[in-house]
């Protein structure tokens, strides 16, 4: 990662230089990834709570890059879950219905928890599907239908 010494200008915002505040996060991510590899322990870093300047987060995102997976969750607004170019490191952005970011984190995991189907939702889906199947053919038990 090269140090960018050029000023970054954004309308209405004080100009800023690279302050290197993203570098400690990279070190933390390296250790978290090493821990995930070694013992499977997951780590979450809250990006919103870090004292980033205007360029630090952009530099961190550019450094991590994009990997093979990008998922969009539609619940209470849109959430984007993106695997970075470093498998096991996921960039997660939660937005509300108006597109405002409500949480932003980096999750070091094989798969982020929020992507997994949740037990309550699975149970609810099971009930709904079961009643639909019974509605279609009330003489048949859902489990006996050949697919």
């Amino acid at each position, binding site marked *: 990662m090269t140090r960018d010494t050029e*000023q970054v200008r954004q309308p209405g*915002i*004080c*100009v*800023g*230089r690279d*302050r*290197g*505040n993203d570098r400690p996060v990279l070190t933390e991510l390296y250790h978290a990834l090493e821990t995930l590899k070694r013992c499977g322990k997951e780590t*979450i*870093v*809250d990006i*919103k*709570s*870090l*004292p*980033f*300047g*205007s360029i*630090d987060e952009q530099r961190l995102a550019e450094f991590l890059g994009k990997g093979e997976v990008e998922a969009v*969750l539609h*619940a*209470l607004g849109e*959430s984007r879950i993106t695997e970075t170019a470093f498998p096991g490191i996921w960039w997660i952005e*939660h937005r*509300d*219905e*108006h597109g*405002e*970011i*409500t*949480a*932003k*984190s980096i*999750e070091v995991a094989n798969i982020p*928890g*929020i992507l997994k189907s*949740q*037990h*309550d*939702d699975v149970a609810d889906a099971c009930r709904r599907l079961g009643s639909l199947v019974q509605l279609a053919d009330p003489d048949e038990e859902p489990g006996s239908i050949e697919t």
Partner: protein
Amino acid sequence: MGSAVEQNVRAITVADRLRAQGISRRGFLKFCASTASLMALSPAMVPAIARALENARRPSVIWLSFQECTGCTESLTRSHSPSVESLILEQVSLDYHHTLQAASGEAAELARETAMQENQGKYLLVVDGSIPVKDGGVYSTIAGITNVDMLNEVAAGAAAIIAVGSCAAFGGIGHARPNPTGAMPVSEIVTDKPIVNVSGCPPIPTVITGVLAHFLTFNKLPDLDDLGRPLAFFGQSIHDRCYRRPFYDKGLFAESFDDEGARKGWCLYRLGCKGPATYNACATTKWNQGTSFPIEAGHPCLGCSEPDFWDMGSFYRALSIPTEDTTRTLVYGVGTGAVLGAAAAAVARSRKSKAKAAHYKVSVNDLEEST
């Protein structure tokens, strides 16, 4: 307090309400992740928050506005379009807020009395504004009741009190010299209830809702600092969390608002920044949908979340300038980093107290001279 809140009979839990709104479990987890971020808690706390919200009941909230400018309410209501903050607010029953409620006059006061009776010992009291006590408290009344009488009456049945804004927390501008109305903060009047001070002029809206969310989630107030402020948001100084801090450590300062240092975004300490002596979450939570905060916009921190910040002298004089030349002090900052930063913060706090004691008036000329 926790037991009192636990006995709250409002049967529907937060999780129930979200499910009734058609929000999936995944959506609920997202809500919990956003709430953790709102409360400045570690993302690792999300499962604990989810478990707590599964059983959290809907508390009654009575909001009293006393000697204030409505800036605190504006901060909260104008901050975000419907978002996690409003989702949090939807989970409480705001039974009285004379600025926001439709009812007025006797009907409004009846709503307050009814909420107090139905939730005796369980409701949350939010106060913004200072309380004038001089001359029997006649300088601010609501429905013919002095602020001090109303505060004492409502506080008596409250489970806990949130003093929102620097006026309610520390007296604010009403308490500034010469304090013509005898303005006092909540904590000097009510001494037998748990009080959390969410200071700031105005306070950061996400901090207000963060404290509400903490109460809603864990049925208790968050951990507090020595001034009664939630540690999660006031645990570190603006200076320590400032993205310009590396420039301070390198001894690179803007000397005026339009010099090379200002254009390059260097540290604003010498332009009067009170960041080293100010504890708040502006540098990380930021304002206006997380756009920026005063220092990022090129203006020094005023120190508005600290007690008596109006009486600390000019906003545009460096913390150490009023009594002596700081060049000698600051030059040691080059290369010494955080250790000196902490020391400078201690010196700044000490000198701030001296500046308060030697209060001087500020004119336009002062502002021009300092730039």
